[in-house]
């Protein structure tokens, strides 16, 4: 302990294993999982807006996949049915896409969802000022705090958007079955549908991480003394 300081250079050497400050990945996973579990209701609320937005996205995309499946069969009856159900198909079209208006609504819903996540996470960070300050007093680096929050958001995002994507897809299928009958199951390209679900899940995860980024940076940068000053 006595040779802690280096007389020549003012810096301390950190190559030595004793000089490390670390938080192993497994442990960070454990801590963030625990935080979610303990604050389950709050996590649920944060995740809820994500679930809704992602399920909407996946609903729209799977609808398109179903329509494309119909078109691929080159069955004029199904084509007629699509036109009746609101798809605006020109005679030569072999692919159906969502209308610009629909796309805007999807984008808006995702945007609203991100704002919701930022809001909820900022609140969560404020609630945890003291915890963050304590961790910093125990030697946590800014990056540990950032990592914990990102991991939490990642887990919430993964679970939330998977649930959202699945429920959106299921609802879309159900809707199609009611409207067009079981022909849906034979005409639909399952590859495309699964692709849509994965895409929606990916977008959901990304949005969840995007939403937590600012609150997490705020938390990570906080000086311990500021964090401790917060009264409860």
């Amino acid at each position: 302990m006595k040779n802690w300081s280096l007389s020549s250079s003012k810096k301390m050497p950190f190559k030595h294993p004793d000089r490390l400050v670390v938080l192993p990945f497994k442990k960070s996973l454990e801590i963030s999982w625990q935080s979610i579990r303990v604050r389950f209701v709050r996590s649920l609320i944060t995740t809820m807006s994500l679930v809704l937005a992602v399920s909407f996205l996946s609903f729209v995309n799977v609808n398109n996949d179903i329509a494309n499946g119909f078109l691929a069969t080159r069955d004029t009856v199904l084509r007629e049915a699509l036109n009746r159900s609101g798809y605006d198909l020109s005679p030569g079209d072999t692919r159906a896409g969502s209308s610009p208006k629909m796309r805007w609504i999807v984008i808006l819903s995702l945007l609203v969802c991100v704002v919701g996540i930022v809001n909820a996470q900022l609140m969560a960070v404020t609630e945890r000022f003291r915890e963050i300050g304590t961790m910093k007093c125990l030697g946590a680096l800014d990056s540990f705090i950032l990592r914990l929050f990102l991991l939490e958001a990642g887990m919430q995002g993964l679970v939330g958007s998977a649930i959202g994507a699945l429920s959106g897809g299921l609802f879309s299928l159900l809707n199609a079955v009611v409207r067009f009958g079981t022909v849906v199951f034979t005409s639909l390209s399952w590859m495309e549908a699964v692709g849509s679900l994965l895409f929606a899940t990916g977008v959901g995860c990304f949005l969840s991480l995007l939403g937590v980024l600012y609150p997490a940076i705020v938390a990570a940068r906080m000086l311990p003394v500021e964090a401790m000053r917060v009264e409860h």
Partner: protein
Amino acid sequence: MAELRNIVRVSKVTRTFQLGKTEVLALKGVDLSIAAGQYVSIMGPSGSGKSTLFNMIGGLDKPTSGKVFIDEVDIAQLDAYELAWLRCRKIGYIFQTFNIIQVMTALENVTLPMIFAGMNNDAAVAKGIQLLKLVGLGDRFRHKPSELSGGQQQRVAVARALANDPAIILADEPTGNLDLTTGEEIISLLKSLSRERNVTIISATHDIKMLNVSDEVVWIRDGLIERIENRDELSISVGQINTRK
């Protein structure tokens, strides 16, 4: 006395806070040396700047001017990583409000600094249990902070402060939120730790009970050190405390 090493040295430290448009001078140039292994109490009324000084020594806050040396290293020169290392390995903190992480069990709270220090999980758990036994909580390490009393929470904090065998333990009003008996228990726990493990204990307090165990008392008033008394002088001045206004 000559062989005593200064573990903490504070040199001409000032700290101003911006309160609205006015500047408040919380510390007006403090010089202080603390020898290794001492039990030092920083005493003073609230608003005297003792918490500010305490934060400076702990590297939790930076002085406006002046320097703070821990083991003769100027902590203003340290980058974030080195500062984190200092907080992790060199200093153990105890707070008035315990600051136990609520979502973790007692044992997890104690092991966290060891994990940060790169100790493997099994070793950390073993040492954590041993430390909790040392502070008298051997049977309660699976409990959450909410299931522990104030005194027990503070014991967890003491165990946590000891986790990486720090050279210094900083205690900010460690008895402030505790009743008389529990406060006394914590004080004697700290005292025995300082004696057995040769840890330097620096505590900011206005708890008179602390006087009995302190090797040195630093009286601070209006951002300046009023006087420093060591143990021998103390018995004389204790009588004066009552006569002071």
